[in-house]
């Protein structure tokens, strides 16, 4: 038998079994607006290589690869593909093929010892009236992503051999370069360092009397990247040439946390995630990340590795926490955007959305972590820069909340091997995208394998409980460079790069060091525990390798094959990056209302609001995530009589024997960002807190996270908006006594093409994590019983800027109803008291679409009608009927009370603005009487529900 025989197995569906994926493909082709008489089939292709016989290949197909009930196979390519246009799609060389690796294991276990390699591919067979151009469109838009895949001919070598370059570390002459040459070097090597920073590096090496190695330069670029140290937010700010702020982040967001000094906080802004107290034995941690730039180019891989990365932040927090919940918040352009309007080089928003959802779904579900909270928001300017926020919550024993490497500890890396994937992710994510990004940045896209991550999650938590390691961190942006660099900051570290397990040969030493290959964790293991830890990893097939040790030199020393390739001081690495000063401009220009607030047609406006993509039901997204796995779910993302009403947040109970729970909610407002970034931040914090209160969380035991996604930060106005946002974060958090415990920023989210620049609206995501003392005392938003009285908490004010009413009615400008933190938080505290006393049976926050949308949602979720009188609403400033119906004044909640509890409820609530506004009815109608006493809305709740559900009925 030859050593390298190659066989191909093609597997197709038997006739008579409908293939849902082929049907989905036909729908997608129709979505492109092309083709008639369409038909499609999708086959799976396996290439097997090794000292194997045809009999063995047949056995592999029969015993493992083909399902005999629904599939048939052929050895060799199938000959029943005639009459179809065929596209054979495989992975690009070097891209990992997890299914191939799994098949290799299975085939070996069948006793086929000669098998050496397996690759997988797909054959798409499409029939119908289609031109060649249309077929190419289908291939490029639906069948493949050229960043990771290739179209193959049947005769193409499935196992192409590259010619590996000999790994060698180069010296980069830097000492004699002038300013322009420094800029060019930074650009050519994608270092993303500015001239000041390059000059500081140059000075450092002039002092050392030598030039840096490529490894050193890459290490510094990664350590000093915006992504890793948040240079922009930690700069000093001079506002309008007058007021100076030292370190913006420290003097606002961090300052709020330190002033609040909440006893619940265990570790904030230090570790990979913020840690707060849960009960006497456990702490919980929360981190939210963005993965925007990779998701713009390869939505599935980008989003999947986004969630994979934030999960590792939780695994790498303290001595490792167990991930117990995920969140995801997305911002896209309208999925109905016409293809002709798309800027060159961008993917269609619907494709991005579908890819992102699938990426989060496949990673989160495979990891067995429930995805319990999120939202999808739309704005045309996200077209080139979609935002993908992924969050993870973890729980850990109290003793496991801190870790620190000590001199002499071994550096152990576990998980996946290192490849060229994700080179320059840290620096790439700090740059703006342009129409060429898809081509020249593809190395920055990583491909995830959640099962690898799940495997090491299982073993590392076992090792944690046996106390086998002293510190852990994840390989995220910046790869080993960032992980080892951070862990060894206090001690020093020495690594032999040739020991790092590689996916394939030919990686340069600097590539090994900064590669962002997924699914790797780095540990500091005392020498006496190394053998046991490696054995535990071996037992569950988790690769683990010692690559070096923590020293006492305070230097980062790297060798490749014993030759020194990097030797720099930890102090210069971590503290050498210069503090900069930003000149920023803050403008407050009142914009008068342009347009007329409608005085009738309210039902039509309500229907349009409910079907607006921001407001419409996201059940299509949410059902694809497992929100029940781990068996903790107490308040679910969808609630009500048919489990299809939009919950304000979710609650989980993480422990078997305790009814204590965790509430997770968020607030985001993409419309106010363009108008007033101070109010945008204030509204987002208020909404996150209010959502949590609505489901029964304790506002006194609540922490929040900030995630900034900004456009260009080279413009003084844009930085001014950043300053305003930070100022609001401080003001509101201090009043609410909700400490920030973790945060992240993603800057330069802009897209340039043909001389034009599209900048995203300034976007701040506030995520909240709060304690629920008893999950039995949580509340959902669906109406519960006809006859129950309905109350509103909070004051309704005029002003429609940034509201959905403005969008629907085409209004511009006007005022924003401001957040009044003192009043709102007082109201929330009292309402929480009423909820724990079990007076409240349903509760919903009033936000997008105002009172009318909130009432509609409560009604159709509960399958009950309601009659409400707008004249009863407590108001200030004379809002019109439209403004009461659709205005988005913050601080308001609608509350359903048990009639027998009304008196006691009112006694508890007497310090608040609380007013009865109507009664729940069993007639299935939403009836609202306007200020003039006339009925202004009288609608069937099931028709409203249909409006709300139709937008994403995909």
């Amino acid at each position: 038998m030859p050593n390298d025989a190659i066989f191909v197995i093609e597997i197709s569906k038997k006739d008579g079994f409908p293939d849902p994926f082929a049907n989905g493909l036909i729908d997608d082709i129709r979505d492109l607006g092309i083709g008639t008489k369409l038909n499609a089939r999708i086959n799976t292709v396996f290439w097997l290589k090794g000292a194997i016989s045809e009999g063995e290949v047949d056995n592999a197909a029969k015993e493992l690869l083909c399902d005999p009930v629904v599939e048939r196979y052929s050895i060799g390519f199938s000959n029943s593909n005639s009459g179809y246009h065929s596209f054979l799609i495989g992975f690009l060389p070097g891209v990992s093929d997890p299914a191939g690796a799994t098949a290799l294991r299975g085939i070996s276990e069948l006793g086929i010892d000669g098998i050496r390699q397996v690759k997988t591919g797909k054959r798409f067979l499409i029939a119908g009236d289609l031109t060649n151009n249309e077929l190419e469109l289908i291939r490029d838009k639906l069948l493949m992503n050229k960043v990771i895949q290739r179209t193959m001919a049947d005769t193409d070598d499935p196992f192409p051999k590259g010619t590996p370059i000999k790994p060698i570390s180069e010296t980069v002459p830097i000492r004699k370069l002038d300013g322009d040459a420094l800029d060019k070097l930074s650009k050519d090597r994608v270092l993303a360092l500015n001239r000041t920073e390059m000059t500081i590096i140059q000075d450092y090496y002039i002092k050392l009397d030598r030039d840096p190695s490529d490894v050193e330069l890459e290490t510094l670029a990664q350590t000093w990247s915006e992504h890793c140290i948040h240079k922009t937010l930690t700069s000093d700010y001079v506002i309008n040439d007058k007021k100076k702020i030292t370190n913006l982040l420290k003097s606002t967001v961090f300052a709020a946390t330190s002033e609040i000094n909440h006893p619940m906080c265990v570790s904030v802004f230090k570790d990979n995630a913020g840690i707060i107290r849960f009960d006497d034995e456990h702490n919980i941690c929360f981190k939210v990340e963005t993965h925007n730039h990779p998701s713009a180019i390869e939505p599935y891989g980008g989003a999947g590795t986004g969630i994979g990365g934030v999960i590792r932040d939780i695994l790498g927090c303290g001595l490792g926490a167990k991930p117990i919940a995920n969140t995801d918040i997305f911002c896209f352009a309208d999925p109905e955007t016409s293809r002709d309007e798309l800027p060159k080089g961008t993917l269609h928003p619907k494709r991005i959305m579908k890819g992102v959802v699938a990426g989060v779904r496949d990673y989160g579900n495979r990891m067995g972590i429930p995805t319990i909270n999120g939202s999808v928001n739309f704005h045309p300017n996200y077209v080139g820069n979609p935002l993908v926020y992924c969050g993870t919550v973890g729980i850990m024993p109290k003793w496991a909340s801190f870790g620190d490497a000590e001199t002499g500890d071994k550096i152990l890396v576990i998980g996946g091997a290192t490849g060229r994937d994700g080179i320059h992710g840290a620096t790439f994510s700090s740059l703006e995208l342009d129409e060429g990004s898809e081509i020249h940045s593809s190395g920055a896209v990583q491909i995830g394998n959640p099962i690898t991550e799940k495997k090491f999650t299982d073993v590392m938590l076992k090792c944690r409980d046996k106390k086998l390691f002293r510190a852990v961190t994840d390989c995220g942006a910046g790869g080993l460079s960032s992980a080892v660099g951070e862990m060894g900051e206090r001690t020093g570290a020495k690594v032999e790069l040739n020991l790092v397990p590689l996916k394939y040969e030919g990686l340069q030493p600097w590539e090994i060091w900064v590669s962002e290959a997924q699914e790797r964790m780095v540990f500091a293991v005392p020498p006496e525990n190394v053998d046991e830890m490696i054995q535990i990893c071996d037992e569950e097939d988790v690769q683990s390798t010692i690559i070096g040790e923590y020293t006492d030199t305070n230097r980062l020393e790297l060798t490749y094959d014993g030759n020194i390739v990097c030797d720099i001081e930890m102090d210069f690495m971590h503290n050498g990056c210069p503090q900069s000063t930003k000149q920023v401009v803050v403008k407050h220009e009142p914009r008068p209302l342009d347009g007329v607030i409608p005085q009738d047609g309210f039902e039509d406006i309500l229907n349009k609001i409910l079907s607006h993509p921001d407001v419409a039901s996201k059940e299509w997204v949410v059902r694809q995530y497992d929100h029940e796995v781990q068996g903790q779910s107490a308040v679910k993302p969808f609630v009500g009589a048919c489990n299809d009403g939009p919950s304000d947040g979710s609650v989980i109970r993480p422990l078997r024997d305790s009814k204590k729970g965790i509430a997770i909610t968020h607030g985001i407002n993409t419309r106010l960002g363009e108008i007033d970034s101070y109010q945008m931040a204030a509204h987002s914090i208020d909404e996150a807190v209010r959502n949590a209160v609505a489901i029964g969380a304790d506002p006194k035991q609540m922490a929040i996270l900030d995630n900034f996604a900004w456009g260009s930060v080279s413009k003084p106005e844009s930085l001014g908006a950043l300053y305003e946002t930070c100022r609001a974060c401080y003001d509101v958090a201090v009043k609410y006594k909700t400490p920030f415990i973790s945060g992240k920023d993603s800057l330069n989210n802009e897209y340039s093409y043909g001389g034009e620049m599209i900048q995203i609206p300034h976007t701040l995501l506030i995520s909240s994590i709060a304690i629920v003392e008893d999950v039995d005392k949580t509340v959902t938003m669906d109406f519960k019983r006809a006859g129950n009285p309905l109350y509103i908490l909070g004051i309704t004010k005029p002003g429609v800027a940034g509201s959905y009413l403005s969008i629907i009615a085409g209004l511009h400008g006007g005022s924003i109803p401001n957040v009044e933190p003192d009043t709102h938080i007082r109201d929330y505290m009292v309402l929480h008291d009423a909820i724990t006393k079990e007076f409240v049976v349903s509760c919903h926050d009033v936000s997008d679409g105002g009172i009318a949308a909130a009432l509609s949602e409560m009604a159709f979720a509960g399958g009950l009608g309601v009659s409400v009188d707008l004249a009863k609403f407590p108001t200030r400033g004379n809002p019109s009927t439209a403004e009461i119906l659709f205005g988005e004044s913050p601080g308001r909640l609608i509350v359903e009370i048990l009639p027998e509890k009304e008196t006691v409820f009112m006694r508890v609530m007497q310090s608040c603005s609380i007013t009865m506004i109507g009664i729940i009815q069993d007639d299935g109608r939403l009836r609202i009487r306007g200020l003039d006493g006339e009925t202004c809305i009288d609608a069937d709740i099931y028709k409203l529900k249909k409006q709300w559900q139709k937008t994403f009925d995909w």
Partner: protein
Amino acid sequence: MAKFPKALIMRGPGTNCDQEAKWALELAGAQVDDCHINRLMKNPRILRDYQLLALPGGFTYGDDISAGAVLALEIRKFFGDELTAFINTGNLVVGICNGFQVLIKSGFLPGNGLENKTTLFFNDSARFECRWIYLKKNVKNKSPFLTLLPDIIPCPVAHAEGKFIVDDENTLQKIQSNNQVAFEYVDKSGNHGDYPINPNGSVAHIAGITDITGRVLGMMPHPERNIFANQLPDIRRDNHKGSAVGLKLFKGAIEYITSNL
């Protein structure tokens, strides 16, 4: 008589419903251990200390070839004789979600000559879906897992490959006439219906089956995620009167072990 019933949870790479399976079995009264498939392949006799084997949900080996295919192969190749003996001596096996897929693909279900005649295929919707559904138990199936359950059981499903299908009518008829059907998808009042009542398009609304003895149960829905009343989606619409009936499936099994093994 087994005074202290012992249950073993089999884990593989990608198993992820082991926590809720452990909670359910513990609350039902079992002493629960877990064991990785690698250890069981090396030493299948580990199983002899236990009276119940649970194969929980997840994505073993990423479901890379098809759901549960590689773990099913490993069980057949390295563990099959021991598992057959385990079942034949009267012990119990339950496979949920991915565990059901494994039991089907390794031939332990439906058994009795119907190996490779049934499978779990992609949902009609072509996507993973998580939602609460209702199950009706087959009162004619005398499986110990079913004894304590009420007729209608609310449960979540969470899968992409859960559509139960058969190679032909004959196979279906045998499964039905042997009373091997354990659960069918129904609405709240016990009636069959289309999507989403039958969430994946399963033939004859079948959600779970047993072997001919009733001692091996496989099902797509997750009764182990219905073990606390506060997990029920309609608990607040029900004046907090609902009870967590999923737990009764495990209690029935443990009761059987306590009195028979």
